């Protein structure tokens, strides 16, 4: 039996369905990230678990007990909010101590725990500071210590890093993961940042339109997206629309070019599909005559985006815009305007039926 269970959780706000029957099962000590774009329902789910809102139907079970109707102050959930939520009239120490005072813990034990936690989050030196004397990152560390002080059954993190600058964000997310692993605390983390979710989680649930599109390990989510939405939301993906022309040999026709992909084997002839190729798998080579060979698409380099060790090249092919990550050391041979051929790999390519495509979702491929 899972430690945290969300069963068929539904929540509507008037005509807007924020959550449309989500199911989650999480074992004790696991770290799950709810990932998705704005309005997908991830924060609503977290607020239901915290008890700040009630579901229209469904249940929330923690350690075998149904807490769906339990008030938030009796749930023993530690939460770190997106907005800075420290009590402005209290010092860092008093903020962390607050939950322990409510529980009427003894003064000595309280002080010891507060000191331990503030040291755990690296703020042992700032115990007497008020929130306005702390940076954003420090405030969120105190908020984390405060949430952990009460030894919560589940730690809830609602985009706690979104207001911080990039460097602090990376540093703090690693610390959150370190502390979570150290304490073995079951954690539910809401974020719209896929890099954040993939880097710290045991499991990632990608949400879209009030539903969980797919849930799995970060590596599964990246390498085996189950829907076009997940494929596009997690990382960057080339999307090649095509029709299966030979299911036995795994051949798909895309813009007049036949592509052989392993995942097309066994598909029905005439089925409309989406061939998904990660940019790092799409190999580019300069073309001298503009002709394309087997499993290749001809095109022309239109932009370069320097990303450090790799450079992202955008290629305009006949039927699609392609993205390829090329080692920066090699990029001089592929200048803007250079005719190229892109090799679509036979293996490692995903294939999805086009009937799974959400109608209204759009993402900028450069900034997914």
């Amino acid at each position, binding site marked *: 039996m899972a430690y945290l269970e969300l069963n068929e959780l539904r929540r509507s706000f008037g005509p807007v369905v924020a959550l449309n029957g989500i199911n989650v099962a999480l074992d004790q000590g696991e770290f799950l990230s709810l990932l998705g774009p704005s309005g997908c329902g991830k924060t609503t789910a977290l607020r239901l678990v915290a008890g*700040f809102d009630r579901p229209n139907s469904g249940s929330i079970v923690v350690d075998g007990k149904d807490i769906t109707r339990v008030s938030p*102050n009796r749930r023993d959930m530690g939460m770190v909010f997106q907005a*800075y*939520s420290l009590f402005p009239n209290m010092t860092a120490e008093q903020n962390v101590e607050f939950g322990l005072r409510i529980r009427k813990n003894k003064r000595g034990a309280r002080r010891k725990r507060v000191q331990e936690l503030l040291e755990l989050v690296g703020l042992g030196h700032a115990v007497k500071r008020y929130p306005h004397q702390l940076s954003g990152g420090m405030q969120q560390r105190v908020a984390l210590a405060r949430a952990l002080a009460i030894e919560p059954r589940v730690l809830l993190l609602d985009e706690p890093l979104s207001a911080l600058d990039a460097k602090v964000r990376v540093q703090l997310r690693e610390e959150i993961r370190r502390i979570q692993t150290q304490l073995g605390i079951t954690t539910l983390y809401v974020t719209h940042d896929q890099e954040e979710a993939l880097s710290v989680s045991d499991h990632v649930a990608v949400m879209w339109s009030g539903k969980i599109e797919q849930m799995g390990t970060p590596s599964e989510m990246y390498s085996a997206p189950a829907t076009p939405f997940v494929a596009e939301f997690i990382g960057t993906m080339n999307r090649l629309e095509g029709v299966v022309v030979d299911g036995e040999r795994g051949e798909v026709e895309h813009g007049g070019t036949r592509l052989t992909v392993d995942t097309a084997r066994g598909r029905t002839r005439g089925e409309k599909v989406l061939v998904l190729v990660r940019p790092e798998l799409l190999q580019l080579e300069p073309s001298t005559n503009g002709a394309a060979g087997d499993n290749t698409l001809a095109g022309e380099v239109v932009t370069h985006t320097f990303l450090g060790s790799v450079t992202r090249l955008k290629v305009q092919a006949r039927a699609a815009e392609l993205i390829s990550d090329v080692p920066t050391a090699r990029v001089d041979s592929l200048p803007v305007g250079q005719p190229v051929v892109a090799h679509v790999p036979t293996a490692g390519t995903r294939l999805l039926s086009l009937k799974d495509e959400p109608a209204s979702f759009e993402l900028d491929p450069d900034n997914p």
Partner: protein
Amino acid sequence: MRRKWIAPSAVVWLVVAAAFFLLPLIATLMFSLRSIQTNKCCSGAAYSLIVHDHQFWHTIRVSFVLSLETIAISLLLFVPTVYWVHLKLPRLRPVLGFMALIPFVVPPIILVVGLLDLYKGAPAWFYDKPYGILGFAYVILAFPYMYFSLDAGFRAIDLHTLTEASQNLGASWRTTLLRVILPNIRAAALGGSFLTLAIVMGEFTIASLAAFKTFPTYIQIVNETQPYEAAALSLLSFMIVWAAMLALLFVGRGRVRTAQVATTR
């Protein structure tokens, strides 16, 4: 370090503003220091007469206790109400704002007639004593000042997040209000309290029509018969109200500083 100079125009404005406030006070002071026998300066006889008049101390005590009563009732009534409206019923904010304007629209003379008629069957301890019906009427009079101060205070903090953070840590509604919300709106509550104190200490119409002896009605009686004492009394009342405000400020001083800084983020 570069030295800051005050612009000449600013000095002129400061002098004009100071003259506007100080000249009447100085004139009153000069008048109050005239001798009752010779009509010439300077004698402290008017002050001596006032401070030795037992009515002075009685009425000032009545008005001051009424002020504290009004402040206490107003805070008890309006802090939870405004908190709840901000948190759960934000659509009612304009309604409350409109209601708070009613004491400005309805003159005190109408208000007191209505209240006396409404409560004529009330028990004697309420109807015949100033701390009953008069305190009640002053809560109504102070409503706009207290409401708009508190409203501004609640708008200055992230009420939802603070409330949820507190509850998440196990606090009840009462604990959340008393230990998290109230300290962070203390400046606003103090502001409303100052205004309430000033209003009650100077309110004449309702007290007079309801036939209660309060400090303003005492000033009026003295004013009609003893001009030098009346001037001395005006200055004394001015100082007493300021002293009371300073006392209130002193009571809430420590926490106000931290809360104010924090809420400016």
